[in-house]
C-alpha cells in the first residue's frame, strides 16, 4: 500500500532531521505564539504584504498564472520539467505510480529550480507561486468570466504551455488589446531568441518554440489594421529574412575560418593547451597577412609596376664584379646577387619623389608603411590583449578557489585520446596531491638556507650562461665581419652567426631546465622562471646581434664618405673625359660600373632575412629529426629492443608549447625589426607560417604526445600576448633608433640624399601641402607643446588608474557585504525553521502523536531541502522576499498540517479560509516537493 510506505519513510527521515538541524540554536519564542493564534491571523502574519497586494487586479492575475499551465500540463508528462510542475502543483494527483516517480523527478528538479531563478519568466512565476498557491482555489472561484479570459491571455504570454490560443480570443481584439498582444508577440519573440539558453531537453524546447512561433505568426498578421497592417507584415517579413541572412552569414563565417577543423582535431586529441598554440599561430598568420598586404600593396607592387626598371640606375644593377656569380645558387642562397638587387630590399628603391603616371610618392609611402607596420601591430596586440582581459575578468579573485577549480574545471573534455587521458589523470592526481601538500605545509619551510643557497647558485649559473652566450654571439658576429672582407670563405664561415645562434637556442633551454632543478621551485613558478630565462636568452642574443650589427653599420657609415667621393670623381672624370675627347656624346657609364657604397640598410635587411630563413630551417629540421624520426624509431624499433622504448627512455617527444610559442614570438620580433630594411621579409614570414601550420599540424598528429606540464589555454593567452607586446616594443627600439639617428646611405634606398630618413615627411609637407599645414605642423612639433601633452597623458593615466583602483575596492566591499548579508539571512531563516519544528514537537507530540510526527517531519524535511537549495542569487531583494516569505510561512503550514487531522479543532478558523489553506501544504511547489515516494 502506498500510504503506509509513505509514512514509514517519513518517520525514518525524521530521525535524521535533528542532526541536520542541531547546528543552529533554536530559540523557543517567536513561533510558538503563532501556533496558538487563530488561523486567520496566522495566515495574515505569514503573508504580510498580502493586503497590499490583493486589491490590484493585475497582481492577482499574475498570481493566478501558474494555475493554468499545471492544468494543461497534466496531459503531457514526458518532459521532466512539466512533470515536476504538474507534480508540485497538482492537488489530487497522488496515485501510487505517480508517487513513485515524484521523488526521482523532484531530485532532478532541485537543480532546475535554482537554475530557473536566473531566468525571468520562471523566476517571477515561481516566486509568486510560492506565496500565492494556497489562495489559488479561492481566487479561481471568485473570478468572473471575462476577467478569466483576460487572464488566460496573459497566462499564455508568460507560460510556456503548449497550447494554441483560443480562436475566440482573437476575434474580440479591441483597440486596447492590440497593444497587449503586441507585447505578447514581443515576449514570444524574446522566448524564441533565448530558448537555446534553457536547460531543457529538445522535445520540450521544440514544443515551446513551435508554440511561440505559431503564436507569433497568428497574431502578427492580425496586428495593425488597414494601412498599418501591410507595413507591419512587411516589416516582419524583412525581419525574418534578416535573421535568416544573419544566421547564414554566421554559418558562412565559421566556414571561412581557416584550419578550424584541423585545430579542432588537434584540440580533441591533445586538449586545449596545444590547440592554443595553433590558434596563436593562426592569429599570427592573420596579422602577418595584413602586414604583407600593406607592404606589398603600397610599396613593392608600385615599385615593380611604376618604378624605374632593373638595370636603369646603379642601385638597381648588379656591380660588375659580382655579375658572373650573381645567378649561382650559393650566392642566391645567401641573398646576394640578383636577390640583393631586387625590390625585396631597401637598397633597390629610388629616391625619386614621385613615380609613374600616378605620381605615387614612393619614399613617403615607404616611410609611412614602415611606421604603420608597427602601428598596426601595436594596435592589434593591445586590442586582443584587452579583449582577452575582458573575457577573464573573474580571474583576479579566483585565488580562493584553488581546490574547487582543480576539481570542477581541470578535466579537459576535448581530450579524445586514451593516452592523453592517462596523462591527464596523472597530472590531475599530482596536482591534487601537490595542493594538499601545499595546504598542509604552507607555513612549514625546511632548511631555508640550503634552498636559498641553491637558488642563488642556480641563478648565478644561468646568468653565466646568458653572458657566455651573449659574448659568443658578439664574438661570432665580429668574426663574420672579418670573414666578409676575405674573398673565399667556406659555407660554415659565411653562416657561422646563424648556426651559432640556432644552436644556442636549441641547447640552452634544456640546460636551464637542468639547472632549474636545483632550485626546487613549485612547477608552476618554475615554468615561469624557465620561460623568463629563455626569453632573456633569446632577447640577449638578439640584442647582442643587433649591437654587433650596429658596429658594422657604423663602420660602413665611416667609409661612406670616402666612397662617395670616389663615386663622384669617377663619374666626373668619365663625363669630363668624354666631353674633352670628342664632341660625340659618349654613352653614359654603364650602371654596373659605377662604384658605390656598401648600403648598410640592405646589409641589415639581408642579415635579418638570413636569420629568419635559418631559423625556419632549424625549426623544421628539429621537428623532422627530433620528433618524427624519434617517433619512427620508437615505434618500429620497439619490436626488437631490449626495453620498452615507448614507455622507457626515448619515448615519444612532447609538444613543447611554451618553446614553440616563444620561438614564434621571437621570429615575429625579427620580422618587425627587419621589415623596414627588407620589405620582402614579411612575404617570407607569411610563407613560413603557412608551411609551419601544415607541417606542425602533421607533426603533432603523427609523432607527439602532449606536454605533461600543461599551460592552461585561456590563462596563458594573455601571457603570450604580453611577451609579444614586449618583443614588439623591443624590436621597435632599434628601428626607431636607426631611423632617427643614422643618416641614410647616399646612393641607395628611397631616402638617399637626405640627412635623415624622416626628412621625407617634412619634405612632403612643405612641397605638397598648403603652407598653413606646415605652419601648424611646425607648432605641433614644438617641444613646448609636446612636453605638456605628454604630461597631460601621464596625468590622465594616473587619474584613470586611481579611479579603477577605487572601483575595484568598492567592488570587493560590495561583494563582502553581499556575502555577509546572505549568511545572516541564511542563519536567521534556518533558525526560524528549526524553531518551528522544535516547538511543534514540544506542543503537539502528546496529542497527535502519529499524525503530527508525520507531518512535521515532512515539513521539516521540506524546509531542510529548501534551505539547502536556497540559491544565493545576485538579487538580494528577491532572496529576501522569498526567504522572509518562506521562513514565516512554515509555521503557518505546520499549524494547518497539525490542525487538520482532529476534526473539532478546525473551528478556530473561518471555513473559507481553512479550505483555501488546507490544501496547499502538499501541493505548493516551495514545500511540496519533499513528497516522498516510498
Amino acid at each position, binding site marked *: 500500500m502506498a500510504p503506509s510506505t509513505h509514512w514509514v519513510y517519513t518517520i525514518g527521515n525524521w530521525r535524521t532531521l535533528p542532526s541536520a538541524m542541531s547546528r543552529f540554536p533554536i530559540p523557543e519564542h517567536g513561533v510558538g505564539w503563532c501556533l496558538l493564534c487563530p488561523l486567520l491571523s496566522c495566515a495574515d502574519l505569514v503573508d504580510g504584504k498580502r493586503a497590499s497586494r490583493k486589491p490590484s487586479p493585475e497582481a492577482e492575475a499574475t498570481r493566478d498564472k501558474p494555475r493554468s499551465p499545471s492544468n494543461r500540463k497534466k496531459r503531457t508528462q514526458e518532459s521532466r520539467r512539466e512533470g515536476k510542475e504538474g507534480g508540485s502543483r497538482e492537488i489530487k494527483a497522488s496515485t501510487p505510480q505517480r508517487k513513485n516517480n515524484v521523488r*526521482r523527478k523532484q*531530485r*532532478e528538479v532541485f*537543480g532546475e529550480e*535554482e*537554475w530557473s531563478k536566473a531566468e525571468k519568466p520562471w523566476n517571477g512565476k515561481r516566486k509568486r507561486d510560492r506565496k500565492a498557491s494556497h489562495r489559488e482555489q479561492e481566487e479561481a472561484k471568485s473570478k468572473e468570466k471575462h476577467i478569466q479570459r483576460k487572464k488566460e491571455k496573459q497566462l499564455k504570454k508568460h507560460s510556456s504551455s503548449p497550447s494554441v490560443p483560443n480562436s475566440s480570443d482573437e476575434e474580440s481584439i479591441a483597440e486596447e488589446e492590440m497593444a497587449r498582444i503586441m507585447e505578447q508577440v514581443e515576449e514570444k519573440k524574446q522566448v*524564441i531568441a533565448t530558448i*537555446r*539558453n*534553457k*536547460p531543457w*531537453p*529538445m*522535445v520540450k524546447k*521544440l514544443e515551446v*518554440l513551435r508554440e511561440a512561433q505559431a503564436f507569433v505568426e497568428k497574431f502578427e498578421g492580425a496586428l495593425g489594421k488597414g494601412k498599418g497592417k501591410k507595413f507591419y507584415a512587411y516589416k516582419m517579413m524583412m525581419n525574418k529574412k534578416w535573421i535568416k541572412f544573419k*544566421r547564414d552569414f*554566421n*554559418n558562412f563565417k*565559421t*566556414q571561412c575560418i581557416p584550419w578550424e577543423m584541423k585545430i*579542432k582535431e588537434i*584540440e*580533441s586529441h591533445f586538449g*586545449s593547451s596545444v590547440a592554443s598554440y595553433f590558434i596563436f599561430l593562426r592569429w599570427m598568420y592573420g596579422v602577418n597577412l595584413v602586414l604583407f598586404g600593406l607592404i606589398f600593396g603600397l610599396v613593392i607592387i608600385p615599385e615593380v609596376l611604376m618604378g624605374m626598371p632593373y638595370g636603369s640606375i646603379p642601385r638597381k644593377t648588379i656591380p660588375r664584379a659580382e655579375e658572373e656569380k650573381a645567378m649561382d645558387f650559393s650566392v642566391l642562397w645567401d641573398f646576394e646577387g640578383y636577390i640583393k638587387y631586387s625590390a625585396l630590399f631597401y637598397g633597390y628603391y629610388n629616391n625619386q619623389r614621385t613615380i609613374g603616371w600616378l605620381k605615387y610618392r614612393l619614399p613617403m609611402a615607404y616611410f609611412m608603411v614602415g611606421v604603420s607596420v608597427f602601428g598596426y601591430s601595436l594596435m592589434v596586440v593591445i586590442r586582443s590583449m584587452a579583449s582577452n582581459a575582458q573575457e577573464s575578468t*573573474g*580571474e583576479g579573485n*579566483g585565488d580562493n*578557489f584553488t*581546490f*574547487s*577549480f582543480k*576539481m*570542477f*574545471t*581541470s*578535466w579537459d*573534455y*576535448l*581530450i*579524445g585520446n*586514451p593516452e592523453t*587521458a592517462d596523462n591527464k*589523470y596523472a597530472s590531475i*592526481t599530482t596536482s*591534487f596531491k601537490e595542493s*594538499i601538500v601545499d*595546504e598542509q605545509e604552507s607555513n612549514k619551510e625546511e632548511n631555508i638556507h640550503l634552498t636559498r643557497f641553491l637558488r642563488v647558485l642556480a641563478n648565478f649559473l644561468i646568468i653565466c650562461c646568458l653572458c657566455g652566450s651573449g659574448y659568443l654571439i658578439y664574438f661570432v658576429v665580429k668574426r663574420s665581419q672579418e670573414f666578409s672582407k676575405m674573398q673565399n670563405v667556406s659555407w660554415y664561415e659565411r653562416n657561422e652567426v646563424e648556426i651559432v645562434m640556432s644552436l644556442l637556442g636549441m641547447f640552452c633551454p634544456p640546460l636551464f631546465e637542468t639547472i632549474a632543478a636545483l632550485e626546487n621551485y613549485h612547477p608552476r613558478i618554475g615554468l615561469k622562471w624557465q620561460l623568463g630565462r629563455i626569453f632573456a636568452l633569446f632577447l640577449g642574443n638578439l640584442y647582442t646581434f643587433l649591437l654587433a650589427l650596429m658596429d658594422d653599420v657604423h663602420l660602413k657609415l665611416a667609409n661612406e664618405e670616402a666612397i662617395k667621393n670616389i663615386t663622384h670623381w669617377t663619374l666626373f672624370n668619365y663625363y669630363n673625359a668624354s666631353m674633352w675627347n670628342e664632341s660625340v656624346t659618349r654613352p653614359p657609364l654603364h650602371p654596373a660600373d659605377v662604384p658605390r657604397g656598401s648600403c648598410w640598410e640592405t646589409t641589415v635587411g639581408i642579415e635579418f632575412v638570413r636569420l629568419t630563413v635559418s631559423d625556419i630551417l632549424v625549426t623544421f629540421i628539429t621537428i623532422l629529426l627530433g620528433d618524427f624520426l624519434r617517433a619512427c624509431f620508437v615505434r618500429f624499433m620497439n619490436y626488437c629492443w631490449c626495453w620498452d622504448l615507448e614507455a622507457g627512455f626515448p619515448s615519444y617527444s612532447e609538444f613543447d608549447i611554451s618553446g614553440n610559442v616563444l620561438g614564434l614570438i621571437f621570429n615575429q620580433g625579427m620580422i618587425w625589426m627587419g621589415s623596414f630594411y627588407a620589405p620582402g621579409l614579411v612575404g617570407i614570414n607569411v610563407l613560413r607560417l603557412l608551411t609551419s601550420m601544415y607541417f606542425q599540424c602533421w607533426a603533432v598528429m603523427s609523432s607527439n604526445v602532449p606536454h605533461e606540464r600543461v599551460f592552461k*589555454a*585561456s*590563462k596563458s593567452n594573455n601571457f603570450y600576448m604580453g611577451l609579444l607586446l614586449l618583443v614588439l616594443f623591443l624590436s621597435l627600439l632599434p628601428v626607431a633608433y636607426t631611423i632617427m639617428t643614422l643618416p641614410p646611405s647616399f646612393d641607395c634606398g628611397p631616402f638617399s640624399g637626405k640627412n635623415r630618413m624622416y626628412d621625407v615627411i617634412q619634405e612632403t609637407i612643405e612641397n605638397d601641402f598648403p603652407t598653413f599645414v606646415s605652419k601648424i605642423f611646425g607648432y605641433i612639433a614644438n617641444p613646448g607643446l609636446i612636453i605638456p601633452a605628454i604630461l597631460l597623458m601621464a596625468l590622465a593615466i594616473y587619474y584613470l588608474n586611481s579611479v579603477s583602483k577605487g572601483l575595484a575596492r568598492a567592488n570587493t566591499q560590495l561583494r563582502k557585504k553581499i*556575502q555577509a548579508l*546572505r*549568511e545572516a539571512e541564511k542563519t536567521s531563516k534556518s533558525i526560524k525553521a528549526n524553531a518551528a519544528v522544535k516547538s511543534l514537537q514540544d506542543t503537539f507530540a502528546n496529542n497527535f502523536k502519529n499524525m503530527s510526527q508525520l507531518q512535521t517531519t515532512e515539513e521539516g524535511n521540506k524546509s531542510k531541502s529548501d*534551505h*539547502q*537549495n*536556497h*540559491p*544565493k542569487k545576485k538579487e538580494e531583494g528577491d532572496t529576501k522576499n522569498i526567504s522572509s516569505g518562506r521562513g514565516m510561512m512554515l509555521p503557518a503550514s505546520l499549524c494547518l498540517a497539525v490542525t487538520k487531522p482532529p476534526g473539532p479543532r478546525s473551528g478556530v478558523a473561518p471555513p473559507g479560509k481553512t479550505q483555501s489553506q488546507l490544501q496547499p501544504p502538499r501541493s505548493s511547489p516551495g514545500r511540496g516537493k519533499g513528497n516522498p515516494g516510498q
Partner: protein
Amino acid sequence: MGSSTSHLSKELLTEYQELTFLTKQEILLAHKRFSDLLPQESRNVEDSLRVRVSTEQILTLPELKANPFRERICRVFSTAPERDSLSFEDFLDLFSVFSDAATPEIKSHYAFRIFDFDDDGTLNKEDLKQLVNCLTGEGQDTQLSTSEMKQLIENILEESDIDRDGTINLSEFQHVISRSPDFTSSFKIVL
C-alpha cells in the same frame, strides 16, 4: 543511401539552429555521426530522428571514449525513461551544450548535473568522492588515499560551500565556476 542519410528537412534544420548553439554544418555533421551509429536499415532520416541509440554505442564515439564522465554525460542528456539511450535530439542537445558558442551558464548547469552522481540536486561528499575518483582515473597508482581524499573534500567544501550545509548546490557551484578562467574553454566537445 548516402544522399538520404544526410538530408534533414529545411524547417527542422532551422529549428535546430534556433534551439542549439550549433551551426548548420555542425548539425549536419552530428546527424551524420549519429546515423553512423545506427544499424544499416534505419539509416534514413525518419528513422534516425525516431530511433534511440543505446549508451554503449554512443560511448564508442572517439570524442567520448576517453572521458571519465561519459556515462554521466549520456545519462544526463538522455530523455529515455531508463536514461540509457539517446535520441538524435538528445545527441544534439549534448553537443550544443558542449559547443563553443554555448553560454557559461548553461555549461555550468549541465556540468553540475553531470557531477551530481546520485541525481539529488546537490553535490554532497559522496558525489565529490566519486568525482575525484573519476578525475584521477581507474589506475591504482593514481588513486588518492583515504586521508588525502578526506582532506581534499574538506578543502573543497571549505572553499565552495558558502552556506555551510555540507553540500554544494547549483548556485554555489555556478558561483565557483563563473570565477574560473578555464571552464568554458575546457568544457567543450567537438565533433
